[in-house]
C-alpha cells in the first residue's frame, strides 16, 4: 500500500475535473446590488405613478394624498407610540395564532400522512378547507365567540393550519424511496426512520407549508381585526378602521404600508430559511 498513491487516488479519474470547475463566486457586494437595484427601481416607479395620479387631480387630496404627505404621516405615526401599541397587540395575536396553527398543522399533517384511514377521511377535506376564504368564517366565529379574541384566534388557526398540514403531508409523501431504503438498511426503523430520514427529508416542503400558512394567517388576522373590533384594543386593524372613520386618508395609507411591510418581513424569514436549506442540500447554484 503506497500512501502517496492513495492520496492521488482520492480524487482520481474524470472526477478530478468535476471538482475543479466549482469555484466561481461573485463578490458579496455586487451580488446584493444585483438583487436590490431592480427592486429599488420598481419601488421608485410605483411611487412616481402614485404621485402622477395625485397630480392628475383624479381624486381630491383629502381622499388620495400623495407620497410625501403619507411619508410625513408615517413618521408621525412611528413616533407617536400608537404604532408600537398596535404592533404589540397585533404581533401577539399573530404569534399565538400562527403558533397554534403550526402545532395543529404539524400534528394533523403527520397523522394524515401516517394513518391510511385518516388520509382517506381528511385528505381532501384539508385541501377543501384551504380553498375556503377565511373571511367567510367570521360570521360563524362571531356567533360562536362573540366579538372576542377567541373569534380572531379561531379564524387565524383555521386559515393557516390546512396549508401547514398539506406541507407536511406533501413532504412525507415525497421522501425519495431510495433514502428510505438506505435509512432502513442503516438500522432506522419506526420512530427512528422519522427522526433520521423522513422529518429532515420533508423539511423543505414543511417550510413551504409554513410560508403559505403564514400568508393565510396574516390575511385572516387583518380581516379579523377589521371585522371584530374589540373595545379598548389598539390593534393595527382597529387603527385602520378608526383612520377611515375619521377620514384620515394619510393614516389609512400609513397603516396599510405597515401591514404590507410586516407581512413581507415574516415572509422574508421563511424565504431565507428555505434558501438556507436548499443551499445546504446543494440545490442552489450560488453559495
Amino acid at each position, binding site marked *: *500500500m503506497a500512501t502517496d498513491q*492513495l*492520496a492521488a*487516488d*482520492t*480524487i*482520481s*479519474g*474524470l*472526477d*478530478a475535473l*468535476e*471538482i475543479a470547475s*466549482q469555484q466561481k463566486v461573485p463578490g458579496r457586494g455586487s451580488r446584493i446590488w444585483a438583487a436590490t437595484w431592480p427592486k429599488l427601481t420598481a419601488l421608485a416607479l410605483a411611487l412616481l405613478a402614485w404621485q402622477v395620479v395625485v397630480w392628475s387631480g383624479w381624486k381630491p387630496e383629502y381622499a388620495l394624498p400623495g407620497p410625501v404627505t403619507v411619508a410625513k404621516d408615517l413618521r408621525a405615526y412611528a413616533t407617536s407610540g400608537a404604532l408600537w401599541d398596535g404592533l404589540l397587540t397585533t404581533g401577539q395575536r399573530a404569534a399565538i395564532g400562527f403558533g397554534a396553527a403550526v402545532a395543529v398543522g404539524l400534528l394533523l399533517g403527520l397523522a394524515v400522512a401516517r394513518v391510511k384511514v385518516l388520509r382517506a377521511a381528511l385528505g381532501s377535506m384539508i385541501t377543501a378547507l384551504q380553498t375556503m376564504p377565511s373571511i367567510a368564517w367570521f360570521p360563524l366565529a362571531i356567533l360562536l365567540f362573540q366579538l372576542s379574541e377567541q373569534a380572531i384566534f379561531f379564524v387565524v388557526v383555521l386559515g393557516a393550519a390546512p396549508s401547514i398540514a398539506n406541507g407536511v403531508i406533501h413532504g412525507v409523501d415525497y421522501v425519495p424511496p*431510495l*433514502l428510505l*431504503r*438506505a*435509512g*432502513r*438498511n*442503516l*438500522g*432506522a426503523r419506526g420512530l*427512528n426512520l422519522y427522526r*433520521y*430520514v423522513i422529518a*429532515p*427529508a420533508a*423539511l423543505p416542503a414543511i417550510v413551504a407549508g409554513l410560508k403559505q400558512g403564514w400568508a393565510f394567517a396574516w390575511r385572516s388576522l387583518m380581516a379579523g381585526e377589521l371585522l371584530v373590533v374589540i373595545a379598548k384594543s389598539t390593534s393595527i386593524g382597529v387603527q385602520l378602521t378608526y383612520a377611515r372613520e375619521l377620514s384620515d386618508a394619510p393614516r389609512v395609507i400609513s397603516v396599510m404600508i405597515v401591514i404590507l411591510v410586516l407581512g413581507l418581513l415574516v415572509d422574508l424569514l421563511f424565504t431565507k430559511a428555505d434558501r438556507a*436549506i436548499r443551499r*445546504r*442540500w*446543494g*440545490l442552489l447554484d450560488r453559495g
Partner: protein
Amino acid sequence: MSTTTTTPGSASAAVALSAVTKVYGRGADAVVALDRVSLDVAPGEFVCLVGASGCGKSTLLNLVAGLDTVSGGGIQVGDDARPGLMFQEPALFPWLTVGANVEVPLKLRGLPAADRKARVAELLDTVHLGDFARRRPHELSGGMRQRVALARTLALDTPVLLMDEPFGALDAMTRDSLHDELERLWTGRNAAGTPLTVLFVTHNVREAARLADRIVLLSSRPGRVIYETRVDVSRPRRIDSPEVAAVAADVTDRLRAEVGRHGH
C-alpha cells in the same frame, strides 16, 4: 444446467439462498422476478452476480438485506448478521455533512459520542476522505460520494456487504480506482481475520472478472442461476490484464448464448 460449486443450504455459509422465489403482483399481472435461486456464499468470499437488466439482481439483494420478503424459499445470513447494502446512487442524506452521514448507523447502534467520533474518522480514512468530514455530499464528486456511501455502510460493522451496481454511474477511470480500493479493503479484512463477504451485482462482465472469486450468471425473466465460474486470477488484479479479459470473454459467451435463446 447449473454447475453449483457449493451445496446450497450449508450451515457455514455467510449467505445462503435456497430456492428463493420472488413474485411481484398477483394474477395476470404477476411478474416472477426470481425463480428458485439457490446460492451459497462462503465467509470472506467475493461473489459477483451478473445478468441483463431486469433479471432480478436488485430484487435478490433487497431480499438478502431484509428490505423485502421472499415469495418462496429461504434466505439465511450467517450469525444473523444484518447485511449492509450499497446502491448505484450514493443515497447520502443531503441535509447532513459527510461525517454526519457516516455517523448515522453508529448513532442508531447506540455508540457513545466519543466512540462515534473516533470511528467516523477511522472509516473516512479507510476510504481516503479523512479531510472531507465537514463537507456536504453535493460538494463531492460522484466517486467520492460513493466512497462516503461505502464508509457509511461499513459503519454497520457488518460481515456481509451487498453492492448493487455501486460503480455503474461512474466514469471508467474513477471506477478503476474504486475497484482497487474495494479489493484492498476486502483483502485487508480477510487478512485481519474479520472476513468481509461481498455479494456484488453488476451487468458489466469485465467488472465481475476484475473483482470476483466467483461469478454467478442469472437468466432473465424469471431470474435463475444459469452458470457459475470461479475466477482463479491472483490479486491484486488489473481490469486490463489478459487473465481478467479471458474470464470476461468466457462469461460473455455464456451470456450471449443466454440472450440468443431468448431471441433478442
